[in-house]
């Protein structure tokens, strides 16, 4: 019998300690996969240049571009100029840096390009038990595979370039135990919004979350990624789900997953990763998935969330709460249902995978979006785009009156110019409803692809179950 049962996080951490932490110094932690993009890497490349350093492990480093990239086909493939000069410059600089330092780049026209957190899993470079970092807080997405994956700043990007390591204090552990099953029309997005509502936006600070329980085991990989993706919105360092047959079935046959005997050996290793019986977490919370409704946010952080049939809560004396409602133009005590909607965005590293697009298409098939509503559907990667087109999903979106774009972060943060105009209401499948996140003065309501699509059809905040046969 194992004398010291361990959590999955503790196992992955221990396997990557180059030098363990001491009271005076943090641990030196080895990084197995370093994903980079155009926004947070240039300053790190500059440090390498200043100090005459090279990228230590180009074979463990993979670059793509997603944040500042255009989503209009003519700009990506047709030679039309990129309207924002600073965005074009950032893209060129990543190309130059990758060429100079020998880093593989899935560039603007590459068939495997996409949002960094969508392509890692698609390519099979995201694997159980790995440490994965990227200069992006939604790196937590990769934890869906039982990887320890977290966002870092640009200085740390430089550290990983030069040493393949990071200096880290060991975080604490938090188990989120989810029993029951999601009801029809209620999705992984609603579940994670429900979890964030319960934990609060700082509830996970200093912790790595492990999502556990019947409801989590029943989720497919796209759904687990949606859950882990938003761990950071609860303040958590990372989110993880134990690998299982669902994980292995997804990874098997992806372009860069191990093959043949190496695959068998890898699966054998991965089966040792799940948390041992009797292992202790620093904290635990419980949630029953079967009690959840579709969820939607009403305020300016993802913890300000209610069931779609609910009303905006009463003020609690917190000045930030009042400021938030004033920004959103909502009054306490009023329902969100039937509030008018101007823009609908289906996309982002949270909800832009094939199953998310299928989910939106299920609502939109044979329907039109309401007049006056602008709807953008932005696939998470070029691979997702091709797969969606092979199924005819793009035609459903186009017939409904939505725009179908090339992949990228797009309207999640509007760096490429895909913006929600000031004062307008956007129902968005992205991850942040911060003030100005989708554009200066934009008012964001976070929801699932089902809810977003249903709201596009009605032109009002809509419970998708009303449109699902």
């Amino acid at each position: 019998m194992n004398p010291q049962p361990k959590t999955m996080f503790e196992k992955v951490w221990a396997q990557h300690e180059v030098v363990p932490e001491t009271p005076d110094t943090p641990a030196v932690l080895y990084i197995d996969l370093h994903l980079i993009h155009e926004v947070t890497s240039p300053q790190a490349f500059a440090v390498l240049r200043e100090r005459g350093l090279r990228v230590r492990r180009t074979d463990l480093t993979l670059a793509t571009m997603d944040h500042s990239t255009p989503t209009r086909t003519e700009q990506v493939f047709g030679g039309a100029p990129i309207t924002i000069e600073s965005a074009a410059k950032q893209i060129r600089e990543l190309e130059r840096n990758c060429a100079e330092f020998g880093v593989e780049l899935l560039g603007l026209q590459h068939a495997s390009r996409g949002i960094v957190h969508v392509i890692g899993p698609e390519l099979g470079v995201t694997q159980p038990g790995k440490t994965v970092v990227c200069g992006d807080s939604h790196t937590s997405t990769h934890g869906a595979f039982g990887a320890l994956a977290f966002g870092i700043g640009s200085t740390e990007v430089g550290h990983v370039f030069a040493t393949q390591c990071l200096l880290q204090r060991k975080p604490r552990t938090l188990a989120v135990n989810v029993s029951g099953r999601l009801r029809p029309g209620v999705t992984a997005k609603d579940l994670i919004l429900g979890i964030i509502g319960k934990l609060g936006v700082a509830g996970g600070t200093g912790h790595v979350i492990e999502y556990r329980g019947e409801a989590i085991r029943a989720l497919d990989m796209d759904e687990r990624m949606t859950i882990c993706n938003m761990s950071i919105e609860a303040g958590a360092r990372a989110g993880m789900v134990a690998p299982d047959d669902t994980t292995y079935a997804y990874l098997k046959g992806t372009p860069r997953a191990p093959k043949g005997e190496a695959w068998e050996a890898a699966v054998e290793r991965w089966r040792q990763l799940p948390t041992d019986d009797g292992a202790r977490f620093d904290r635990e919370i419980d949630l029953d998935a079967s009690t959840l409704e579709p969820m939607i946010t009403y305020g300016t952080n993802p913890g300000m969330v209610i069931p779609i049939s609910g009303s905006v809560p009463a003020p609690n004396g917190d000045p930030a709460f009042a400021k938030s409602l004033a920004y959103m133009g909502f009054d306490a005590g009023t329902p969100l249902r039937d509030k008018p909607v101007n823009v609908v965005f289906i996309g982002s590293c949270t909800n832009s995978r094939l199953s998310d697009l299928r989910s939106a298409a299920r609502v939109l098939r044979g329907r039109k979006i309401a007049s006056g509503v602008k709807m953008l559907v932005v696939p998470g990667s070029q691979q997702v785009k091709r797969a969606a087109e092979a199924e005819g999903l793009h035609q459903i979106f186009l017939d409904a009156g939505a725009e179908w774009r090339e992949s990228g972060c797009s309207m999640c943060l509007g760096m490429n110019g895909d913006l929600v105009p000031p004062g307008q209401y956007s129902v968005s499948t992205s991850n942040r409803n911060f003030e100005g996140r989708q554009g200066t003065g934009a008012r964001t309501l976070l929801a699932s692809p089902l809810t977003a699509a249903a709201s596009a059809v009605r032109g009002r905040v809509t419970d998708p179950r009303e449109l699902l046969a």
Partner: protein
Amino acid sequence: MEPIKTIRSRTVVLPLENIDTDQIIPARFLRSTTREGFGRNLFADWRYDASGAPKPDFVLNQPEARGCTILVAGRNFGCGSSREHAPWALTDYGFRAVVSTEFADIFRNNALKNGLVPVLVDEPTSRWLIEHPGAEITIDLETTSLALPEGQRVSFPLEPFARYCLMNGVDELGFLLSKSADIDAYERRRAAV
């Protein structure tokens, strides 16, 4: 980095909780590829109106804020995006320390690497500071304590290694590079498995 021993300043107070990095520096300013010049867009959407004119009611636009190097903010400061542009904007503007009851993890890491001291205080100290904007306080890294105007001292936690780096103006990359032999050995060990 300049070594930091003490920071003495009047405070600027932003009492809101959950100030996210999108407020500190909005995404549209992240298309720059250098570390410099973010200070003028610090809190841009709170600080300027649509025409780019300063909003007179925003605290950084008030004359008392001029020259202050310590920002006091509500709980969970720096949540959201991992953008290091947030501490770059704060330091470029002139801030040397932020005082709050809680910091988001990535922001705290990024701040420490840029000579911006995250000072974690208890609820009563935070409340006093929020109720006394412009108070002259001293943050001392030697004793890891914050001195209030009447001389009362409140100690704050600071990871010893981070404190060492701040006080000596040392960056962590040098330390990591000094571990090269350990990293080589680790890679050999892993390759053998």
